[in-house]
């Protein structure tokens, strides 16, 4: 099963490498990784998506918790949550396909954020499934480059991941 784990991490040098190192050292996999500071400058929030059975996920969360730099974590997939990822895609936009790209972007509620005579740069947000679907839809037209942020997420309702 795919899990989304969000971590509050001390904003210290070396902290990120401890988290990433743990995954490779213990043979856990990382599908996506997203990290940025929070409103509290001493903390970063890091979100990983990973795949594993219950036993593996239990080990992942336990070992993450054991890292001194990990302040708190939550497995978002255990409850209702919002998952978002942002993607920027450069697509060939020549002749008839120029309209096609625009139409498809509209269907996905994506925005064209940069334009040249031959290329559209499209920005889209959503869960990983939506982004995958967009990539598939654009593939026949000609994708030139893709940049994805990796998944970020937050629990629905009153539940908080904070100190």
């Amino acid at each position: 099963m795919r899990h989304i784990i969000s971590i509050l991490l001390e904003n210290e040098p070396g902290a990120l490498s401890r988290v990433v190192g743990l995954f490779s050292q213990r043979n856990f996999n990382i599908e996506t990784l997203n990290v940025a500071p929070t409103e509290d400058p001493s903390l970063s929030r890091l979100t990983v998506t990973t795949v594993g059975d219950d036993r593996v996920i239990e080990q992942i969360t336990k070992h993450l918790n054991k890292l001194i730099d990990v302040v708190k974590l939550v497995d978002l997939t255990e409850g209702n949550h919002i998952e978002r990822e942002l993607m920027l895609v450069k697509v060939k936009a020549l002749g008839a396909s120029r309209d096609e790209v625009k139409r498809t972007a509209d269907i996905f509620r994506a925005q064209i954020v940069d334009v040249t005579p031959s290329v559209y740069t499209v920005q889209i947000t959503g869960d990983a499934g939506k982004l995958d679907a967009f990539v598939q839809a654009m593939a026949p037209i000609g994708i030139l480059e893709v940049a994805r942020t990796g998944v970020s997420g937050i629990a629905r309702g009153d539940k908080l991941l904070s100190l």
Partner: protein
Amino acid sequence: MELLSGADMIARFLKDEGVEHIYGYPGGAALHIYDALFRQDSVKHILVRHEQAATHAADGYARATGKPGVVLVTSGPGATNAVTGIATAYMDSIPMVVLCGQVMSHLIGEDAFQETDIVGVTRPVVKHSFSIKHPSEIPEVLKKAFYLAATGRPGPVLVDIPKDMTSPTERYEYVYPKKVKIRSYNPVTRGHTGQIKKAVDMMLKARRPVFYTGGGIITGRASEALTDLVQRLGFPITTTLMGIGGFPQGDRCSLGWLGMHGSYEANMAMHHADLIIAIGARFDDRVTNNTSKFCPTAKIVHVDIDPSSISKTVRADVPIVGAAGSVIDEMISLLQDREPASPDALTEWWKTIDDWRAEREGKLYEPSKPGEALKPQEVIEAVYRATRGEAFVTTDVGQHQMFAAQYYKFAKPNRFITSGGLGTMGFGFPAAMGVKLNFPQDDVVCFTGEGSFQMMMQELSTCKQFDVGVKIVNLNNQSLGMVRQWQDLNYKSRHAHSYMESLPDFAKLIEAYGFTAIKVTTFAELEPALERAFADTNELVFLDIYVDPFEHVYPMQVPLGSMRDMLLSKTERT
């Protein structure tokens, strides 16, 4: 208010922290610190002859005392030489603080002379590490390092100290931090009472219970409490290699240690148990053999201070996260309020166990006959007698290590000191130094092999400088015995590089350092040699004891089998 340089702060902090000995080796990046050590006399620095030995000596000290061992090395090669010892301590959860010099901070990342990213190199084998960013943070960082090393599940902590952080010209306020808080680190102590109750219920209902306890009993100082609990219940108990001494081995409840080379009765009892109470042990592969065949009829209670150890390899039915001592105390107090199990609840079980014991009685090994080479096992037994079972025993790694664990019987914790998790050849001798320096009145014996000893024998020079009177018992089988045993069993006796050609004349080598060495080749020579060796507790004596090169360590679990699948000798199998 006191103003001190970073280097003086380090020396001063060590004193305030109550550190008596540090083990180390100087070099450019650590020289300000060495100068600070020179100008004080509270902390004694032991100059080793290789940084790996510094870590093993600190580790031996830590295992014998329960307090963090302290190491000081320089940057680059000094630090990388220490890595094996750090990993050794990490695998066995030993508290250690390693202070590493580093190149000046403005040079970091430029491949400066003797620069290595030692924090990066050691990341997977430390509990945590710090880099000093400003001299003023030294006292607090060091306090955190000691606190992390010694609390929760202990382990090595590395502190990387760029040379400019210790500059003698920059002084900052020094206050010894009595306490530190780390917001993300709150090791549990007490276990969950509901879970402990559940465990106690199961214990009272069990018909074939076994305690299986590990190094957590030793590091958690829970040996007395454990002994009380086991004796109240009258359950059989087996320990891991790391847990040896956590329960007195002479007691009737003791089945010895378990696992790959564990005792027949311990492995049999585990396999047939209906309840396993694991405390401070981690179900590692040298214990469980094939986990899918592990203890098919047992429910498992697992007590550990580290939640990530629970259900890592074998699923626990009743997981209890807590410190061994406090959980055991709580079990005892719960038991006091409960109707005890009927006195003959375990009669059947003990009868079965006694039958297993009787089966192997007198068949563990064949003693040497006159004219034959000595058996390593009988040497260990003789040393046991010569020291009345009271010595601190360290070992290297190989057959001699297993024999030492099997035939020297321990009544107390912190006495058997061995590299269990990493299995580091070269560990035994420097570890013995670390013990002896802190227990000058006691006999400290290092059982080693001619292979292992040659990995750290430069430390003879350290022993000469600091008058370290350890007894080195070299079980000289003229081969890398454990490797050779595997080659006998798995490679049709093709002994690829498992024999030690061109062995030195150990006696001459030892004498070159001014110590006494005795060569022993027959049984008749053994007792007098031991008498001579142990005459003066403070004299280093090296016993070069020639033993049968063809001997194997048994029992030996059959790969991929269950706990009870064992080879019992070259010809017998369960």
